[in-house]
């Protein structure tokens, strides 16, 4: 059971490695260019089908309950094809969750230019939108966090918590606050972002352990943001 899977895993990682891909192209591009593109397109289509099938199954049946074989059947591809695109089920989940985020960020891109009020208000709004979005599928989101920690080193998957877009938004929001004079010039913004992200992430335990809804989580985080903001407010304005 373990060894064929291990083999697939190695093959998948090999094909995904940019170094090997480049090497392969330079050597054979002239002869195989057309075929390679075709193969690439085919692989992309398979990948898409796998992701669509996985998303449906994860949402209706659950992550733990869904097997790779079931994903393959639903997608109409061979089990082996799933493993040429993804190293593991956890990696499929990671991609499904990343794809979902596109909707959230489209929403945020629309909303953030219209945010008004203090830095605390704006930060609270950005985080609240995240909570509202993720708690639509709390079990799947929690499975995503749990799966992140089962990944082995060398996996292509993005670990939970590396959310550069959210980080970027929070950073910009505080930097703009500094321009408006709400934040002291000496503030170490990257560090503040880090601390807020820790509080944001671990508040999901309220959803996991106490069945809290997004409003309750947002309320807690707003108090936490307020508390951190006491530390970065310029003393003259206080």
């Amino acid at each position, binding site marked *: 059971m373990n060894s064929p899977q291990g083999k697939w895993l190695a093959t998948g990682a090999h094909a995904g490695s940019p170094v090997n891909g480049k090497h392969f192209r330079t050597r054979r591009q002239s002869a195989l260019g057309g075929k390679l593109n075709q193969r690439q397109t085919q692989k992309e289509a398979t990948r898409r089908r796998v992701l669509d099938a996985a998303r449906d199954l994860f949402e209706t049946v659950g992550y733990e309950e869904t097997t790779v074989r079931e994903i393959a059947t639903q997608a109409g591809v061979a089990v082996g094809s799933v493993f040429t695109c993804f190293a593991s089920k956890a990696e499929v989940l990671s991609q499904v969750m990343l794809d979902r985020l596109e909707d959230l960020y489209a929403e945020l891109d629309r909303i953030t230019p219209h945010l008004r009020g203090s830095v605390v208000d704006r930060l609270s709004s950005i985080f609240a939108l995240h909570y509202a979005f993720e708690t639509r599928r709390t079990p799947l989101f*929690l499975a995503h966090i749990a799966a992140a920690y089962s990944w082995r080193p060398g996996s292509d998957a993005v670990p939970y*918590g590396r959310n550069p877009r959210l980080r970027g938004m929070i950073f910009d929001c505080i930097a703009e606050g500094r321009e408006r004079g709400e934040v002291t010039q000496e503030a*170490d913004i990257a560090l503040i972002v880090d*601390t807020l992200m820790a*509080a944001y992430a671990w*508040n999901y335990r309220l959803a996991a352990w106490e069945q809290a809804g997004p409003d309750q989580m947002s309320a807690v985080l707003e108090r936490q943001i307020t508390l951190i903001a006491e530390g970065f407010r310029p003393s003259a304005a206080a």
Partner: protein
Amino acid sequence: MKHVAEVDSQAETRVRMPTRRAMAKQQTRAKVLAAARELFSTEGYEGATIRDIAASAGMSTGAVFANFADKSELFREIMVFDMAAVLEAMNEAAARGRTVDDALLKAFGAGYTFYRGQIHLVRAALGLSWSCDTGPALRELPAMQDTVELFAEQLALGVQRGELSQECEIKLRSQMLFDSYLANYAHAVFGGWSLEALQARSRDQIRVILAGARRG
């Protein structure tokens, strides 16, 4: 009353002189736990099978199952033991701190030092605590709440010493300290951070979390 005392003394005798069978059982459990710890640390939680753990402990799978219901119970036993030990180390370290920042930093550092070299174990613990079936049992371990309490005590001492303001919201701040303390383990798991890097980050985080509490 006399009757009760008699029962108590009997119970005490039983504790002092366990039967040979109970002792053998104790030894078996200890052997299984040692093997499990070793395998969880090198193979991770998913990678370590009961079969491997039994083989490594030199016994049958059946003998393991006679002592532990399943793999998650094995893991929980190890966590209970470790978390009690780490909490004690953190308490001792905090007691040596001169200021509130110093005490908190020493406590964080004691935690990270304890788990250094056991990063797979940490990875497994963090993952399992978020999972639906194994999570609740792990999260409800008293040591989790006790760690937050430890931070709260240090903040209260800071207030007493006049380092922090009276209205510094100890409960919320100690929770945030705990969040940052835990979040740094993810840096160790995914980013391979060294102990020094973790401590440097902790020092900054503690400063940010306490910044607002020093005014007023």
